[in-house]
């Protein structure tokens, strides 16, 4: 008999997904800085060391490349490691391991080996932390063939997507918005459901414009579309991209606004726009607008709010494409 769903936040939902997967499969192990005794700096892994012991929840040295590199060895050997990078700003040191190795082991060995590895990391702005604690670098990973990129925007989906990521046979970068960690509570079933990778979701149907977003910016987009007949998509998986759902919506609305918090130039918004400009151009009634972070490093707390797309910037873009 499944337990009653509880209203929980994203931290709790991710914790639940980890716990359930660790119960289900003895090969699932967690490693990272402060994930054990401390339960993670955001408490995402709280209680797991107690339940599963230090061999399955491993506090590592301060060593991002080493964490991912070690996890690669574990994954290829036959475990299902879930590595945590404490903040996305520190994942850059592990890009070499991710792109030169995790992404390529299957292809390098023509399928003889695979690398079922999940790298979880908190991303994005909104909690006024120190420098390099607010990065939104998803586009790098989307340009790495061999890597999947997942960004949940709600507790329910966070749980289901993380379970799918852990079971996926290939490396997955799993991005958790620090702003959303405790912002939203919703009912999350305590049973074993998954949310498939590679599928976007239509959060709100509409006819006049398609708004495409993910993670933390999804909620800002939803606020911005109030009073507008907008269709809002939550991509959830950025790579592989669910072009089908996007194109279907574009065929309906003919207008597109993409919202993300990463810098504009070469952000993932560019790929979405280019995909539409290439394969769904015929249906467009207006330019494809991107509302994004500026082409600048995200500033310290005093200016943080100016950096992220604001509701008014999103609305301005919506109005512009609609009146076009």
């Amino acid at each position: 008999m499944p337990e009653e769903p509880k209203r929980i936040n994203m931290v709790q939902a991710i914790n639940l997904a980890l716990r359930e997967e660790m119960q289900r499969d003895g090969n699932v192990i967690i490693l990272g800085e402060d994930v054990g005794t401390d339960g993670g700096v955001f408490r995402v892994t709280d209680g797991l060391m107690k339940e599963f012991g230090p061999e399955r929840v491993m506090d590592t040295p301060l060593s991002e490349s080493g964490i991912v590199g070690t996890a690669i060895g574990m994954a290829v050997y036959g475990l299902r490691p879930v590595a945590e990078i404490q903040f996305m700003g520190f994942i850059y040191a592990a890009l070499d391991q991710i792109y030169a190795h995790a992404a390529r082991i299957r292809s390098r060995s023509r399928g003889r080996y695979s690398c079922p590895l999940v790298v979880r990391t908190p991303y994005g702005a909104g909690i006024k932390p120190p420098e390099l604690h607010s990065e939104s670098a998803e586009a790098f990973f989307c340009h790495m063939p061999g890597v999947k990129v997942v960004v949940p925007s709600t507790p329910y989906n966070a749980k289901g997507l993380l379970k799918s990521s852990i079971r996926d046979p290939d490396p997955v970068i799993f991005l958790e918005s620090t702003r959303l960690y405790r912002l939203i509570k919703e009912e999350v079933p305590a049973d074993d459901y998954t949310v498939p990778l590679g599928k976007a979701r239509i959060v709100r149907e509409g006819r006049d414009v398609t708004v495409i977003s993910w993670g933390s910016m999804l909620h800002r987009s939803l606020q911005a579309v109030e009073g507008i007949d907008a269709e809002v998509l939550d991509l959830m998986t950025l790579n592989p991209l669910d072009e089908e759902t996007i194109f279907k919506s574009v065929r309906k609305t003919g207008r597109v606004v993409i919202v993300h918090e990463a810098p504009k130039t070469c952000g993932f918004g560019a790929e979405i726009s280019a995909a539409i400009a290439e394969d769904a151009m015929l249906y467009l009634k207006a330019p494809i607008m991107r509302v994004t972070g500026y082409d600048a490093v995200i500033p310290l707390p005093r200016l943080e709010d100016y950096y992220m797309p604001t509701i008014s910037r999103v609305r301005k873009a919506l109005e512009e494409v609609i009146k076009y």
Partner: protein
Amino acid sequence: MPESIIESINVKRLEILDVNGDVDSSLMPALSDNEIKRMYELLVLARTFDERALHLQREGRLGTYAPILGQEASQIGSAFALEKTDWVFPSFREMGVYIAMGYPIHMLFQYWGGDERGLITPSDLNIFPICIPVGTHIPHAAGAAIAAKHKGDKVAAVAYFGDGGTSKGDFHEGFNMAGVFKAPAVFICQNNQWAISVPRQRQSASKTLAQKAFSYGFEGIQVDGNDIFAVYKATKDALKKAKSGNGPTFIECFTYRMTHHTTADDATRYRKDDEVASWKPRDPVLRLKLFMAKKGLWTEQYQKETEDKAKVIIDKAVSEEESIKPPFPGDMISYTYEKLTPRQAKQIKDF
């Protein structure tokens, strides 16, 4: 000789000032009474700053803050040995170093208040902007040191980092560069026994951190990091060695982080009160005070004056910081490159 010893390494530890305030006079560095008083006043000032920063953080006037409580001797003792012309590469927990170097204190509050302008190092100092990613500034220090050598400048580059920092690849690559190019660099690790919740012995299986230097062909030494004279002497010697062309030195200051990692952390989740308590008697400020009292340099009156002076300085810095106009939002864009790109020129119009 089919099985032979081809290299022997001895790792030293230096202590001068003990917990009772007594010194080993054979090792005691030459310091005038005034210098010793200056050291003490800096310790008190740094501690006063630290307390105020925690206070302001609780009031929501600063962001996350990383306190230095317990590590003051490691910071003041080493910085006291530096010249203003030396290049300093701090991590985020070096407020004592900043203060000892004479950095404007209101700018430190400004930085922790979330304003980059707090990092505009005054032109008479060469302090690199604070490095948030642990350990990654170590190669910068190696590079600056090589550059100084290249230009014939008689300065050293000094990097500060924690025990956690020794695990990063950049520690290794930076140390190796410094060793190969015999750079005038001094690497100072404040081994405060913890990297957030990870204890020193799980950070590395090596017995000491100091010994890691020998992997790069230069010397590492451990000093009692709560002993300001030992830290001062080790740093002074290392700087002299660096500036006379004899290459880098690694100094492990064996100390303790007396409180939470930062204001966002709860250390009771992962370490025992006992352990913290056991370090209390080793307090670096107390120790210097005992020494000074025995030498007749310390009185209750002096203590009060010193504290009052510190309070005045900090009060003034706080109000100075409060009077600064908020930053212009467009600044986050304008300092990306020397000139705005065409795109940025459009973007900045939002403000």
